[in-house]
């Protein structure tokens, strides 16, 4: 039975989940995290591409999947989508096993793996029509999908004439064609111009707002930092860190203090029992203390005749954190 997709409004802002697909949110598929891997491993001969991966993506979140080239992100995504068979370990998507329930999983999952791939001799519309046939989806919503990804004007042009950004947008549109619960997007911002990246960010946020789960890999760390609830960073086939973005970047447990006399301020603050550490970084101090200690710090220093010229919560960028974690800072 075809699944209507006419709920996509021309401005693309209305619900993507107005009518769930026939197979969605029912039975055993209704429980469990969006993605859960247990000791998932892929070997190519002596090379371990993915090494006992334990990944947990909760429903309704945007999850950033990061790592340097060759870390194993794409291989992991391929395993989740059944393109590559795991050597060992298990994975469950939307509560279903990729080993036994893959067809059902894919009816509720949209994917973009590596480069956008379509038939070069078909137009944007015809490519979506072809994949709508493959997914037994009603073709009436295709125009709205093209509108959503801003390809209406190029809809009748052959895919081979598209720019990389247009190809990328068409791929995202195709991934949304059957209104999936889970989106797995590998480098969706690749080839997009700054405006396109912003549009992609807005689209991701909109999808999250409507209850979709998004697993996204990207090298545009600034975007990941802003749109993702949680991230995992892979390196050499292993997840080296996984958690909430704010927690991982240490937000909420350090303050940056600017003062005239750094030595004096260091001595004063080091003596306070609620300060866990003071580190000097060029023209400022990084004070390990709760954020609500800001006023106390100000008063303590002022009481000793040291006046603060600046004080703000410590914010490490994801980019710096990524480089630190993956050991590529140098």
């Amino acid at each position, binding site marked *: 039975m075809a699944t209507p997709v006419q709920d996509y409004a021309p401005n693309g802002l209305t619900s993507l989940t107005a009518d769930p697909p026939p197979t969605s949110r029912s039975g055993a598929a209704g429980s469990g995290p969006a993605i859960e891997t247990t000791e998932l491993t892929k070997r190519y001969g002596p090379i371990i591409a993915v090494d006992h991966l334990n990944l947990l993506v909760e429903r309704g979140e945007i999850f950033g999947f990061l790592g340097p080239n060759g870390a194993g992100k794409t291989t992991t995504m391929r395993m989740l*989508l059944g*393109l*590559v068979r795991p050597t060992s370990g298990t994975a469950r998507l939307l509560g279903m096993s990729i080993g036994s329930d893959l067809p059902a999983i*894919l009816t509720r999952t949209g994917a973009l793996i590596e480069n956008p791939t379509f*038939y*070069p*001799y078909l137009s944007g519309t015809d490519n979506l029509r*072809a*994949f709508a046939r493959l997914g037994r989806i009603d073709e009436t919503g295709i125009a709205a999908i093209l509108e959503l990804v801003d390809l209406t004007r190029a809809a009748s042009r052959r895919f081979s004439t598209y720019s990389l950004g247009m190809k990328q947008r068409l791929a995202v549109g195709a991934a949304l064609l*059957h209104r999936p619960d889970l989106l797995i997007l590998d480098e969706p911002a690749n080839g997009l111009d700054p405006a396109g990246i912003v549009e992609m960010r807005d689209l991701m946020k909109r999808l999250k707002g409507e209850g979709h789960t998004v697993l996204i890999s990207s090298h545009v760390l600034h975007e990941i930092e802003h749109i993702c609830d949680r991230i995992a960073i892979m390196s050499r086939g292993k997840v080296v860190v996984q958690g909430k973005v704010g927690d991982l970047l240490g937000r909420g447990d350090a303050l940056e203090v600017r003062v005239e006399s750094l030595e004096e301020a260091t001595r004063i603050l080091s003596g306070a029992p609620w300060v866990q550490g003071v580190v000097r970084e060029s023209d400022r101090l990084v004070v390990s203390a709760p954020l609500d200690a800001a006023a106390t710090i100000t008063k303590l220093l002022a009481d000793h005749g040291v006046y603060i010229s600046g004080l703000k919560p410590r914010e490490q960028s994801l980019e710096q954190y990524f480089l630190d974690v993956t050991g590529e800072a140098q």
Partner: protein
Amino acid sequence: MTAFLSFEWFKMRKRPMPWVILALILALTILAFWGQATRGDGRANLFLPRGWLAALSFCSFFAPFFWPVLAGSWAGNEYGWGTIRAVLTRRPNRITHVLAALVVLLVALVFGLLAILAVASVAGIVVSLLTGNDVFTSGIMSGDFLLVLLKGLLTAWYVSAFFLLIAYVAAVMFRSAAVGIGFGIGSTLAQLVLQHILRDLGATWQTIADHFPVVYANDMITQVVWSKLVPGTNLASVSPGTPSAGQSLLALAIYSAIALVLMLGAVRARDITA
């Protein structure tokens, strides 16, 4: 399966390449009629209804060179373009996918052969008119003739399907359009060359050469239709020692089955890394 069939057929209708190949085959059919018309002894085979049988005979010459191009590029480009990923992340059944695409190609062959017969009808009429003959030779059409025509059509399809299958299998196994096309055409040429070499090396080698697929495929159509063509003409001649149509049917079925098993085994086992 039906979703895959619908998907593949949609692509078949929209892709220019099959139409280009068909146009080339139809043009060559016309050229073959023209060439045959210039031969005094074979001209009578071109007048309808014999012209249909002549057109099917010409398929023996086209099949090893054109259908591999269609099949090789059809299967191989899925890997070259990376579209196999897009397909299998929507419907993961790989076996169904390769079989559905093959079925659509085999159905397209039927339409191609019917188009050849349609063009042959026009070409036959033109030759008849230009040479002052009746456009439809009387006294030939009978139930027996229609049966041979039907058998000839099925045989032409069968032989074409074999050459198409070989290229398709090669393209899928090696994930490459170039390999599919190259192997499809190249293996036929290689067999023809090897045949000549092996025949000079003694009886054992001769026996091996006699079981090359191309030996069974080459004259199979002629074996079926020659009895209704003008006796003694080039289109009605079958080389001595040529396998019977029944033998060819069986041999090509065995070769096709082996190729299919190899392909399905590879598709089932391997990872999609395109």
